[in-house]
């Protein structure tokens, strides 16, 4: 399915909930509202014409210091989908504010979302509502803060911890 058709189909289904679409650098991108995120992902996975059966990557970007976006929603959670059958890719993004940094979990759709979402929580402090195991993934429990946030200084030291007691 050519790229324009995928975005057209999503626009048809979700209309105004689709905030923005573009295909810069050949990467199809759809920014959606948080309310319809799971529906969008489900349609992408289940509709035969789309068939995005793999959640290739899930990450986030902190736009706190991005020129021109300092006042907008701070975080963007980015889903990279891939379709084995059709060999096409789609990037789905959802924007959330700092004081309401919650996104519904996609664990029911793809089990890999479990670890990816744990990593996003760990690194950015974006919570995933309904996540079955909301622990940090890479950092240790006692770590304070979320290191990939733009206001986390790279040279901050945290005390060494001993073995768990």
């Amino acid at each position, binding site marked *: 399915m050519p790229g324009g058709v995928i975005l057209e189909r999503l626009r048809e289904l979700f209309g105004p909930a689709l905030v923005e679409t573009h295909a810069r*650098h050949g990467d199809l991108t759809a920014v959606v509202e948080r309310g319809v995120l799971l529906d969008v992902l489900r349609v992408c996975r289940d509709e035969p014409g789309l068939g995005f059966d*793999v959640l290739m*990557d899930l990450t986030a970007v902190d736009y706190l210091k991005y020129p021109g976006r300092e006042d907008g929603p701070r975080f963007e959670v980015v889903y990279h989908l891939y379709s084995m059958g059709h*060999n096409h890719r789609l*990037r789905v993004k959802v924007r959330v504010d700092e004081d309401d940094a919650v996104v519904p979990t996609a664990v029911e759709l*793809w089990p890999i979302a479990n670890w990816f979402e744990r990593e996003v929580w760990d690194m950015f402090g974006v919570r995933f509502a309904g996540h079955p195991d909301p622990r940090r993934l890479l950092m240790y429990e006692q770590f304070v803060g979320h290191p*990939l946030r733009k206001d986390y200084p790279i040279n901050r030291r945290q005390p060494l911890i001993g073995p768990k007691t």
Partner: protein
Amino acid sequence: MTEIRDFMLGEGSGTGSGQNLQLGVGPAHPAMHGIIRIQAELDGEFIRKADVEIGYLHRAFEKDCEVGGYNNAIPYTDRLNYVSPLINNFAYASAVEKLLGIEVTERCQYIRTVMAEISRVCDHLTCVGASAMELGAFTVFLYMIKAREFLWELVEDVTGARLTISYGRVGGVKADLPEGFAAKVTAAFKETREVLDEVHRLLTGNRIFMDRMVGVGALSRAETLGYAITGPLLRAVGVAYDVRRAQPHWAYDRVQFEVPTQTAGDNYARYLVRMAEMEQSMRIAEQALALMPGGPINVDFEGRPIDPAAYVDQGKQGKTEGLLLVPIRLSPNLQGQNRPAWEQVNAADKRVVLPPKETTYGSIEGLMNHFMLIMEGYGIRPPQGEAYFASEGANGELGFYVVSDGSDRPYRVRCRPPCLPPMAALHRMIEGEMIADMVPTFGSVNMIGGELDR
């Protein structure tokens, strides 16, 4: 007997007692090549439940990338998958090139293809060798490390280093291939093929090996896709997905190769896939070397060979009259004039690629160009935007998602590590199996701490 077992394993342990034994494996464990911790709940010798804990090698790769310029991240990418670092280098550079919208030269694409395939063979050799060693086949490990040594010598020849190679650059590569490289590759591949043949005869039909591998650690096709597992583990369940075939980059669309698959999805199928892939990788590298366009010999506009050292000396003495008229195409490291050209391996884009050193030292334009790329606040500055570039790493899809804010530093670099998804699914592979089977399964996943924890 019961008392002894209670003393050895803790009270109430063992089958039938209704209470399972908690066993922590790792983070440092002799059978774990890599630092992870598996908290296993054992019922006798069977794993009932497992919790995999990672992060012991976290080095803030993504955060560090945001601090320096675009090329400053190249050495960090070496340390992602440290068994095949060249692939990481090139994949990251390609992601930034995608963001910049530039094309690297034909010869550079072939060089990237050749070096990536040599790295892939190294990676598979290490993986198969190490997992065979953990099952007691120490000979295989030694043979495979011997073969890897031949290939690492090739890498050393090209990059000057064995592990921390930092050979890729945004817009090209550090330097051209050395003289006589194709012949060295042929010799090294001959040795590697002999080793693979020996290993094939030692392992593929070996009773002990098969007993430990066949039917162990299997994942279904649906679960493999659900866990976004790519690479040899996905091809072992019968899905012929390979980024080199599905979205050809570099020179993969100009070479012939097969994507080997198996259907069983167990450790043995993964072993077979890896063994077959090594042969395909060598095929790709050989074809790419044969197809590689040659660089012109470095001569001046009248066809006379240029002595680079004399050229630089003249430039330093201010005798630049006439020199600027000569199109200088010399090797970047002043090693001689009969090396193919810098332009052959680097994109002709002054916004991105450092000029050859002769130009830097020999002309004011070259010097300015050099400073514009090196000075704080200048450097490579892609337009605002984002790009995701996927390439086939040794363990699966290696993706880089780069966001630019228009400055000289990446706003965000995300590495999609190919071995994180299989690690997320590791508990599904080992639950219900015996504790001893954890070792070959973990070996077949080929976890690389550097890219898993970043």
